[in-house]
């Protein structure tokens, strides 16, 4: 009898906690519905600014999907065809989401027509300030610029860098960025074949 009482008491407590959680979920859904369009608009604005910063000589940035990917993956990986003022393709900017130390990291990588990396930028991320977040600085990202060519391959491991100590403490973020770049190159290669 006592056991039954205990069980029903516990059940009652669990039920109350569930009600609180359920109410919280409903509230979050409502706020998300209201704020989502604004957040999407802000993200698009950031992306536009990043495009212009990565390839200032570009005049027209046309967003395209990788045809080899499923619809769900196309939100994570896509690219922009960059055209100059006379409509000639001068390069590509790939967007990739990769998994860093603090969760998802969004990368924008600018390539020339031969897929040599010309510039790259780390956008949304939750990396540790002062360590992984340092990759937001162009100085840190400079280690990847002009790589992915025959004379200068992409540094996929720390030991391939001129100064491996420069990424010490941020190995997971470095590896995540490399993975994102590799995936973007692979997808662009397949797409442009």
């Amino acid at each position, binding site marked *: 009898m006592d056991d039954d009482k205990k069980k029903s008491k516990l059940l*009652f*407590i669990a039920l*109350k*906690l569930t009600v*609180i*959680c359920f109410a*919280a979920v409903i*509230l*979050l859904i409502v*706020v*998300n519905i*209201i*704020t989502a369009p*604004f*957040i999407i608009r*802000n993200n698009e604005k*950031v992306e536009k600014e990043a495009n212009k910063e990565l390839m200032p000589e570009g005049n027209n940035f046309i967003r395209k999907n990788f045809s080899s990917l499923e619809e769900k993956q196309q939100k994570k990986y896509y690219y922009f065809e960059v055209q100059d003022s006379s409509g000639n393709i001068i390069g590509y900017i790939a967007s990739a989401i990769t998994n860093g130390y*603090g969760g998802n990291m969004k990368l924008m990588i600018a390539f020339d027509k031969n897929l040599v990396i010309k510039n790259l930028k780390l956008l949304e991320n*939750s990396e540790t*300030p*002062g360590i992984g*977040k340092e990759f937001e600085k162009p100085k840190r990202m400079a280690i990847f610029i002009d790589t992915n060519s025959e004379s200068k391959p992409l540094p996929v491991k720390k030991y391939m860098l001129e100064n491996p100590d420069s990424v010490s403490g941020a190995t997971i973020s470095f590896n995540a960025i490399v993975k994102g770049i590799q995936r973007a190159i692979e997808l662009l290669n397949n797409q442009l074949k």
Partner: protein
Amino acid sequence: MSDIKKSNRYFNEFSKGILKENPVFMLLLGLCPTLAVTSMVANGIGMGIAATFVLICSNILISLLKDFIPDKVRIPAYIVIIASFVTIVEMLMKAFVPFLAKSLGIFVPLIVVNCIILGRAEAFASKNSLTDSIMDALGMGLGFTIALIIISFVREMLGNCWFDFTGYGAKDVLTLPIVNKETKEIVFYILGQRLEFYSGSFVLISASGAFFIIGLLLASINAIKDKINSKEIK
């Protein structure tokens, strides 16, 4: 008479968080976000408003639900309530003040574990009436915001020689009248000779500078407190 007593009580609940029980300067609570975000006054204001919003909303809800929330699971229940409001603040920031969301970064979600908020929920809102809880949250939130603004004001002024409000829509950074607007340096001319006096100190903007400034401010406050106490004893 009872109305006067009531309003006095509300005023006491409100004012204690600003001075007597200031969460940062007196109780030394919430020091992690305080150290991290006070490199800019703009960040300090943003963080203060965000934490105050969460504090008021969670205090209201916890005070209303104090009889509904079972004692055995009160902490998980408080965390769910606080985390929900923090997520709401994060979404609102990302939607309407994206620069602040980017600038505060990981410290917005970390409001969930800010000991001021959980502390007020457990120590005050769960035991007091709705109006008292609101006044307590307002006072504590305002006290936290004032502390953040004071610390960030000192750090940004001494570290940069300017105040950056460009994220809030200001056209240019704000400088003190003695700072040269173009070079952002304090420059004096003595007998026609240009004498660069001060151009900011990076260490005060860095994390170690935060410890240094907070330490100095706490020492000053303690010295003032000691002086007042010794006067009262005399």
